[in-house]
């Protein structure tokens, strides 16, 4: 197919970024948003759409408004490595079971937000799901299936625990 590789990082040594458990050295300025260093899944650049959601030490953050200099020494997790997280893996499976994705572009961010929600609140109400997910836009309009998938993942996590 296309002679391409997925971009993982850009440039040559200067800032050390701990990404998905591995150190990467980057030649970029500290004010550069993390987004442009990791995957370039750009949505809005202002923290308005959630497409670029990542975890920093397990907490959700928008990489488009997170300066790379602010995460030095912290663990940055992206959707690429979420399967290594037990909750993340359940959420990903629930997404597949509910056939959530349409174009899929925002779904990495949706899954990262949902995983962060279920880690802190394994049994969210519909209102709590909405509250946690309202910052993630899906232009294809998959919201109902996102809710279904989160409920399914929540049920699964409770069963595993019980």
């Amino acid at each position, binding site marked *: *197919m*296309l002679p*391409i*590789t*997925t*971009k993982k990082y*850009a*440039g040559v040594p200067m800032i050390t970024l701990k990404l998905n458990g591995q150190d990467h050295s980057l030649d*970029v*300025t500290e004010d*550069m*948003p993390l987004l*442009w260093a990791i*995957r*370039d*899944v*750009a*949505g*809005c*650049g*202002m923290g*308005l*759409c959630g*497409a670029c959601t990542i975890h920093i030490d397990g907490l959700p953050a928008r990489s488009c408004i997170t300066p790379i200099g602010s995460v030095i020494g912290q663990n940055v997790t*992206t*959707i*690429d490595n*979420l*399967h290594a997280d037990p909750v993340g893996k359940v959420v*990903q499976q629930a*997404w*597949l079971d509910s*056939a959530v*994705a*349409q*174009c*899929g*572009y*925002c*779904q*990495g961010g949706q*899954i990262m937000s949902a995983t962060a929600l279920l880690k802190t609140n394994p049994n969210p109400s*519909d209102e709590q*799901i*909405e509250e946690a*997910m*309202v*910052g*993630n*836009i*899906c*232009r*294809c*309009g*998959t*919201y*109902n*299936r*996102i*809710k279904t998938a989160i409920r399914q993942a929540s049920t699964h996590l409770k069963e595993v625990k019980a």
Partner: protein
Amino acid sequence: MSRVPNDFALSNLSRRGFLKGVGATSALVLAASWGWQDALADDTAKKFGADGMPNGWIDDPKVYVSIAADGSVTVVCNRSEMGQGVRTSLSMVVADELEADWAQVKVQQAPGDEVRFGNQDTDGSRSMRHWYEPMRRCGAAARTMLEQAAAAQWKVPVGECHAQLHKVIHKPSGRELGYGELAAAASALAVPARDSLRLKQPAEFRYIGKEGTKAIDGADIVNGRAVYGADVHFDGMLYATIARPAVYGGKVKSLDDSAALKVPGVLKVMQIEGRPLPSEFQPLGGVAVVASNTWAAIKGREALKIEWDDGPNASYDSIAYRKELEAASLKAGKVVRNTGDIDKALSGAASTLEASYYLPHLAQAPMEPMVAIARYKDGVCEAWAPSQAPQVTRERIAERLGVPFEKVTFNVTLLGGGFGRKSKPDFVVEAAILAKEFPGKAVRVQWTREDDIHNSYFHTVSAEYLKAGIDKNGLPSGWLHRTVAPSITALFAPDMNHEAAFELGMGFTNMAYAIPNVRLENPEAKVHTRVGWYRSVSNIPHGFAIQSFVDELAHKAGEDPLKYQIKLLGPDRQIDPRTLSEEWNYGESPERYPIDTGRMRTVLETAAKAAGWGRKLPKGRGLGLAVHYSFVTYVAAVIEVEVKDDGSLIVHKADIAVDCGPQINPERIRSQFEGACVMGLGNAVLGEISFKDGKVQQDNFHMYEVARMSLAPKEVAVHLVTPPGDVPLGGVGEPGVPPIAPALCNAIFAATGKRIRNLPVRYQLQGWQKAQA
């Protein structure tokens, strides 16, 4: 049949390259080479469906299907994937006829090459409609070749060999050969004649029409492995952003790039020429900043000092323009359809009702902003982008770089949403222009969200005026409708001030209610920005106006809106669209695709029944109904809304009934209609692009709001209606949008007594209780 030539010429053309070969020429030459005569000359041999598309269809299995020695089947997908599931659905069709095991099916994206792959424009809700049959034949032909190869190897009659789930079986002897074992021999055989193929009976289908086929890209998407435009990466790649004119037709007057060049990582600043208006699919021009990473390119662009000459559209102002449109809608305009005697019907009516509706510009705003990558060396260009129009993209790159078409390769990535925006290759041409400046280097042009919202090909803006003469039974004896909106055709030639046949044919001309006296008019509207296709296009204003007005008529008559709708539809009948002065018919044959009022009634009744139409609701809640026929598919929606004391909305439920003909991938059909419902709600409640001093006033999602989870229905149910008898496929991607806004606003009326005639709804319901009291 009377017909206005310019409408007809445009009506027969697809969304894309109708002005082939004139991309970079001036507007004057463009107008001269418009080619009405050529288009009219085709009249005698008018072709429909896939036959009528540029470069038609191909059903050669040697182009579309390959089988490896390990048995894995690769299906080439010639359509662009933007969430509609086409890579899965087309592969399902091939796999079914091929008797392939879905677990062994892979898909490969076709590059832009219509001579090889047939038409590739992924638009107009026609991928399955036009490609279902060719892909079935591809699968059946490949299956036949495998059976022939097995028969030859076993030296038995081919009639004794049957393909079944990835094997060919010789029943009399019990022998079997896997597809992988037969692949080499089968591929050496001639493709069997089309009319010799045995297609499956529906009862034999394994995947078509069935639930449970997993989306082919699903696992890649949830694991971050799916390749969108911005995932295309080359070592040493350069990154560019472009400062484009804020006003359509604006030009750089003066440029000071000294500060930009000092930004670390910035390598070069260069100007890009726009095309004289109209801009067609070409870049708007401006100043490009090329850097070693995207952030440097963004910072560099911020440091540019540019003085612009805003040009002829500098005074475009949405408030003033709305007044112009509304004034035009109150005066007679070009007559599009005239049945009976409207003047007599209106003057002799027991009573009349009139209403005006207004819908603003919208931007598609797909989640993935425009992005494209190109590489150029020695007269050869290769590009990558999320594009709905691979062939036209390749054509425009070739024209703009001045290289032969065959020296350009265009690769299609996954699209992070399209909605019509990515049918236009302006952003890919930008990358190609810059790549030529850096021979051998890959250059990526990245648009920011602000770039996207400022430089969309906007959904039109429209004023709709309706007037009905009402008889003593409360039904309209006369129907006058004027639609006024700038046309997409203004992208391609000067002085295109009327909606074209393909725009009018979207729910305006083909209005099918049983009304004896009808006049439909289209007054002029001049364009001041780039107007383009937006999911469901002109069906949005036409559907909103008509379905709101019918609800108003029902209430005036004191009738239940459902019963009124059914009365208005009249007896079940199939209408030849030509009898409604409707020639375009979504490019489909009027015989094969008549307008069926019985199917319209069925979707209405199905949605209403599912929603519990007529039930009592608490104060502040209401049910609203709308039905709309578009892209040769019938859709009705019932929405249950709650209007809170502060005027905010909760959409409790949406019931959507769909008759899109035979269903290939029901699961993806439901997902498309669920999504269209959410997008329709966003359009209705929040969506508005406005201009002042020629410039778009919205920058990003805080100002151009789209539906979030909070606006989605708490519950959405899509009811797929079994079509009556042997009807052909309808569209799926777009027809879900148009009925949503009117169903919502009709529900708001039922809840509050307040009629919303201007979109978006936004703050219009504040204080509704006081108004009611």
